[in-house]
C-alpha cells in the first residue's frame, strides 16, 4: 500500500474507534430524551459522515496520485521531543525549569550558535512572563521546586 493512503487509513481507524466507544456510552431513559436523540447518536452520525468523506478523499488520492510528503528535518522532530522533555520536567521538577530548559535547547537546536544569547533568552523570557502573570494578572502557578521556594 502506498504511504499516501496512510492518512485516510488512520482517519478511518479513528472514526471506527469513536463509533465503537460511542456505542458503549450509557443511554438515558425515554422520559428524559423524549423525541430528541441519545448522547451517542450525534458523535456516531458525525463519524459516519467523516467515513463517507474519507472515502471521497481516498478516491481523490487514487485519481490524482499525489506525491508522498518528504520527512521533516531533525529540527521538527527535536522540537517535538523537547515538548516531551517539558512535560517530564514540569511534572517532576517545576514548570519554569521546564520552560528554561526547552527555550535554551530549542534555540540551540534551531541554530543559535551564541550560547549566551540562548541562555539570556531562556532566562529573561520566563522571568518577564512570570512577573507579568504573577503581579499583574494574579495567576498562581503550579507548585514545583522553584514555586515552592517562592510561595513558601
Amino acid at each position, binding site marked *: 500500500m502506498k504511504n499516501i493512503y496512510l492518512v485516510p487509513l488512520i482517519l478511518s481507524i479513528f472514526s471506527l474507534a469513536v463509533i465503537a466507544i460511542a456505542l458503549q456510552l450509557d443511554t*438515558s431513559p425515554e422520559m*428524559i430524551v423524549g423525541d430528541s436523540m441519545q448522547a451517542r447518536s450525534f458523535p456516531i452520525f458525525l463519524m459516519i459522515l467523516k467515513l463517507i468523506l474519507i472515502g471521497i478523499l481516498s478516491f481523490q488520492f487514487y485519481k490524482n496520485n499525489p506525491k508522498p510528503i518528504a520527512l521533516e528535518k531533525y529540527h521538527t522532530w527535536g522540537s517535538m521531543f523537547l*515538548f516531551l522533555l517539558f512535560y517530564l520536567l514540569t511534572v517532576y521538577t517545576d514548570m519554569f525549569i521546564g520552560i528554561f530548559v526547552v527555550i535554551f535547547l*530549542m*534555540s540551540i537546536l*534551531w541554530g543559535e550558535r551564541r550560547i549566551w544569547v540562548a541562555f539570556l533568552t531562556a532566562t529573561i523570557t520566563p522571568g518577564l512572563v512570570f512577573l507579568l502573570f504573577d503581579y499583574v*494578572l494574579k495567576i498562581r502557578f503550579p507548585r514545583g521546586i522553584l514555586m515552592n521556594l517562592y510561595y513558601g
Partner: protein
Amino acid sequence: MFEQAISAMASVIVDPYLLGLIFATTILGVIIGVLPGLGATTGAALLLPFTLTMDPVHAIAVLATIYVSATFAGSITAILINTPGTSAAAATTFDGYPLAQKGEAGRALGIAVISSTVGGIFSVLILCFAAPLLARVAYEFRSPEYFALTVFGLSMLASISAGGAVKNLIGGIFGVWLSTIGAERVTGIERFMFGNYELYEGLHFVPIFIGLFAISELLVQSKTVDKIIKTVSMKAVKLPTLEDYKKIWKTILRSCGIGTFIGVLPAEGATVASMIGYSEARRWSKNKKEFGKGSIEGIAGAEAANNAATGGAMVPTMVLGIPGSGTTAIILVGLMVHGLRPGVYLFTEQVEKVYQIFGSMFVANVMFMLMGLYAAKLFARVSLVPTQILWPIVFALSVIGAYAFQGQLLDVWLALIFGVIGFFARRHGFSVAPIAVGLILGEMVETNLQHSLKMFDGAWWMILTQPLALMFLVFAFLGLCGPMIFSWITKQKD
C-alpha cells in the same frame, strides 16, 4: 439607538486608557503581522489569556486591534522581503515585491497603507449599519433556523483557501466531534472523557486554539530555520500621488465591497478576500500587462480587500455567533469568556459595549495608518529577528497562556497535543481553521438539532418546512455541491 451608538463610538476617543491600550496593541499587532508565521490568528490566540482580567470592552478591543493591524502589517514584509507576514498578504507579494525591486518600495507601501485603511474603515462603517439590521432578522430565528445556519456555516468550510474542500470538511467534522467531549448537556451522560473529570465541562477553546494556531505554527516554522531572507532597501514611505489615486480609486472601492462581502460569509476570511480582490483588480484593469511586474492596482486590490474582510468577518461573529475567520473564532471565544453572548441580546442589552468595540476598530484602523506611514521602515527590521530566538519565546508564551486560562496543567498538555495534531494535519494539507470553527459551532449544531427534534416531536424533516431554515440548507447544499454540479454541466456542454 443611533444617538447611543454615536456616543458610544465617540467615547473611545475620550477614554485615554482605552486609547493607550489600542495604541500599544496596534504596535504589537504590526510587529506580529510583520513576523512571518506569526499572523493575526496566532497573535490573537497568544494574547487571549492576557485579556482575561481586563474589562470586556477593553479585552475585545485588544483582540480586534490585533486582527486589523496584523492583517495590514503582513503587507510590509510582503513588499520588502517577498514574504507575506500573514497569509492574507500573499496576494500583495505578486506586485508589491516587484515594485519594491524597481526601487519604489516606499510608493508600494504607501499604496498598501492607504488601501488597507480605506478598506478597514469602510468595513467598520458597514459593520455599524449591517450588524444591528442582521441582529433584527436574527431575532426571528428559532432552533431550526440556527441549526440550518450553523450547517451553512460548516458547509462554507469547504471553500476555505488552504486545504481542499474534502479535507476542510473532515477537519470541520473533527472539530464538531471535539465539542462532544464532556458531559452531554441534556442528559449529563459523559462522552469520551475516559474518567478525566477535568473534561466534564468539555474542551475549552483557549488551550486548543493556542495549540492549533501557535504551537503547530512553531513546528511548521522549524522547517524554515535555514531560510535566508533578502531585503529590499527603502528610504521612506511615500503617499500616493494624484495620478496614483486616479488609477486606483475604483479598484479600492471594488475591493472594499468584495472584501466586506467575503468577510461576512461564515468561515471565509481575509486571505480569500485578498485573492479575489487581486484577481478582480486584474480583470477590470486597463493595464493587465503590468500585473505581476509591480502594478499599483494589484497592491490596492489585494490590500483594500483583506482589510475590508476584517470588519465583514465581525458581522456574523457578533450577530450570529458564527466566526467569519480563524481570528474571529478567537474573538468569539473572547466574547464568550467575558460574558458577552453574541446575538440579538448583544445588540439590545449591550449596545454601548458593541459600539465601543466598533469604535475601537475604527481607531485601530487610523492608528495603523499612521504607523504604516511613519514607522514601516522600523517595523520591517523586526522581521529580521532570528527564528531561533522568536519561536522559543512563542513556546513560553503559549504554555503559560494555556495554563493561565483555568490554572490547570491539563490545558498545557492539551495545547501541546493539539499543536502536534495541528502540525501533522497541516503537513498533510489539512487547514487547522476548520477544526477551530467546527469546535465552536459544534455545540450550537447539536443543541439546536436536539431542540428542533423536540419542537417537531422527532420529525426531523419538519426543519425543511421552515422557510429560513430551508433557505440556509439550500445555500449549504449549493456551497457543497454547486462547484461539482457547475463543472459537470460545463463538461456536458463541451
